């Protein structure tokens, strides 16, 4: 490149700057007269190029180009996210492997010790197994289940007493650490008689009272009529002292309302020998004896003038009692056996018998519902 060419390049650049600043072509060429012949066509072409309307993107092409770019951007973002997740998982696995390898290398003899451990202490596991067997959790569970099943019929008074009796058995079973099978068998045995709720009370009371434990025996549970059973006048045979149950009968929940011990010595002597409240003093359940009394009352149920007390008030759970009749029925029937005569509808209280308590106080027929059960049990026995 010669010096003149270099100069003409500078002259061309200077002339283009002058034209851009508003100078005319002649003014620019006048500054560089030695290159005027060569600069003139170049400046004309440059002016033409600058005067050209250079194209721009059409609206459609601009929109399409933008859309393509956005689509590419989104696809790349998704692909990047996928690869990031993949590499993240791979990295996590590698980190875990490195960690495990580091731990393994840090404790090289660990595996041997772990393998030798059982052999070094051979007696531990058998001893533990032996100690574990006597106290399995199963008996306790079984006992609780049995209790639940017996608790279900608590609508009547008698099953409540049964529950009280079973719970100590369960406790005993647990305390003695019996096997699960023996515990369940015992519980089943004890629980079986309870379902016939009303009749079961009869023999129990009958068993207890001959023994004369009615007063001495502590109440099993506060739910079961604490008063009457502990009353100091347990006249067993002839004295119909406890007549209160008559009040309970109309109300569908006799046992729940604690009745104060009413030594009704001045009461009319009924034929019923035993007082009520056999439940508290009930002896250990004997299943076979209980069942029978319940059947008989069913036949005697329909009395001509007496409406059946069965009605609505008492929800009688039939699940435990095998064919158990409502309590009212069972209580009525023994009455016939004990007294030997049906309840006399003398005072017109018959109609109101299941409900009206004052009348029941006056007349014996309604009363025996509790007492007659015991008497019935005694008779059967």
């Amino acid at each position, binding site marked *: 490149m010669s010096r003149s060419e270099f100069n003409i390049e500078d002259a061309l650049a200077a002339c283009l700057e002058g034209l851009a600043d508003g100078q005319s072509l002649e003014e620019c060429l006048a500054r560089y007269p030695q290159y005027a012949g060569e600069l003139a066509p170049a400046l004309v*072409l*440059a002016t033409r*190029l600058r005067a050209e309307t250079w*194209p721009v993107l059409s609206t459609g092409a601009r929109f399409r180009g933008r859309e393509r*770019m956005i689509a590419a951007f989104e696809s790349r973002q998704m692909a*990047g996210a996928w690869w990031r997740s993949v590499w993240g998982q791979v990295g996590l696995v590698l980190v875990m492997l490195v960690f495990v390898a580091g731990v393994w290398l840090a404790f090289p003899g660990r595996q041997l010790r772990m393998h030798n451990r059982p052999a070094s202490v051979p007696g531990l596991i058998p001893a533990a197994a032996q100690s574990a067997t006597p106290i399995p959790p199963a008996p306790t569970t079984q006992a609780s289940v049995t209790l639940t099943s017996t608790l279900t019929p608590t609508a009547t008074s008698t099953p409540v007493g049964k529950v009280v009796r079973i719970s100590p058995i369960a406790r005993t079973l647990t305390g003695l650490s019996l096997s699960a099978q023996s515990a369940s068998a015992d519980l089943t045995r004890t629980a079986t008689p309870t379902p016939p709720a009303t009749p079961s009370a009869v023999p129990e009371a009958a068993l207890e009272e001959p023994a004369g434990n009615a007063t001495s025996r502590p109440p099993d549970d506060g739910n079961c009529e604490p008063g009457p059973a502990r009353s100091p006048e347990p006249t067993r045979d002839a004295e119909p002292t406890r007549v209160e149950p008559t009040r309970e009968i109309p109300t569908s929940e006799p046992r729940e309302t604690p009745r104060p011990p009413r030594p009704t010595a001045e009461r009319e002597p009924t034929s019923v020998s035993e007082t009520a409240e056999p439940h508290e003093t009930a002896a250990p359940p004997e299943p076979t004896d209980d069942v029978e009394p319940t059947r008989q009352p069913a036949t005697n149920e329909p009395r001509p003038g007496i409406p059946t007390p069965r009605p609505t008030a008492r929800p009688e759970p039939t699940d435990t009692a095998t064919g158990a009749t409502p309590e009212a029925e069972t209580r009525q029937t023994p009455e016939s056996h004990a007294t030997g005569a049906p309840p006399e509808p003398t005072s017109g209280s018959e109609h109101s018998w299941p409900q009206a308590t004052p009348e029941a106080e006056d007349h014996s027929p309604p009363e025996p519902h509790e007492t007659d059960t015991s008497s019935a049990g005694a008779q059967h026995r």
Partner: protein
Amino acid sequence: MQDVCTDAQMIALLEQAKSGDSAAYDRLYSLYADKIFRYLFARLGQREIAEDLTADVFVRLIRVLPSYRVVSARPVASFSAWLYRVAANLLTDHYRRQRHRQHLDIDDHAESPSDDHSPDVRALTLEQDRSLAEAIGRLAEEQQMVVIYRFAEQCSVQEVADLMGKTAGAVKALQFRALANLRRILSPE
């Protein structure tokens, strides 16, 4: 140069785009779409192809921008030069494909642009004046860049030097030779 954003704004814009901000890409498209299209059209002389290639440039931008290192000294000029380089590479690929296709189709030989020379169209715009566009297309690549930067984008010598990474004297020399060759191409003889 007609860039509407400053160097600081360009740095922030590029960082946002590199971090995956779609709005930053949209802003870059608005800034450079017309420039890239003009460059491509000036070198191709065909609007449709130039439009398609312009879109391709920005699709490729999304792929290669994360690896672009922002130059803090002259971020606008550096990025512009880099983006023009991307367009030039795409154009080279286009020429390569076209050449391969011409080898396969012998009849395309009669459709060469040089056959359309006609002095009457010189008064038209560059889009209509295909002779001028074709003449620019015949220049060497650097001379083309200088012509486009200097006359289409109205850049100064120093700005073109920055864009092309050359000295101002080298740009002046390229400018002089580009105009001389262009005049020779456009002359009827």
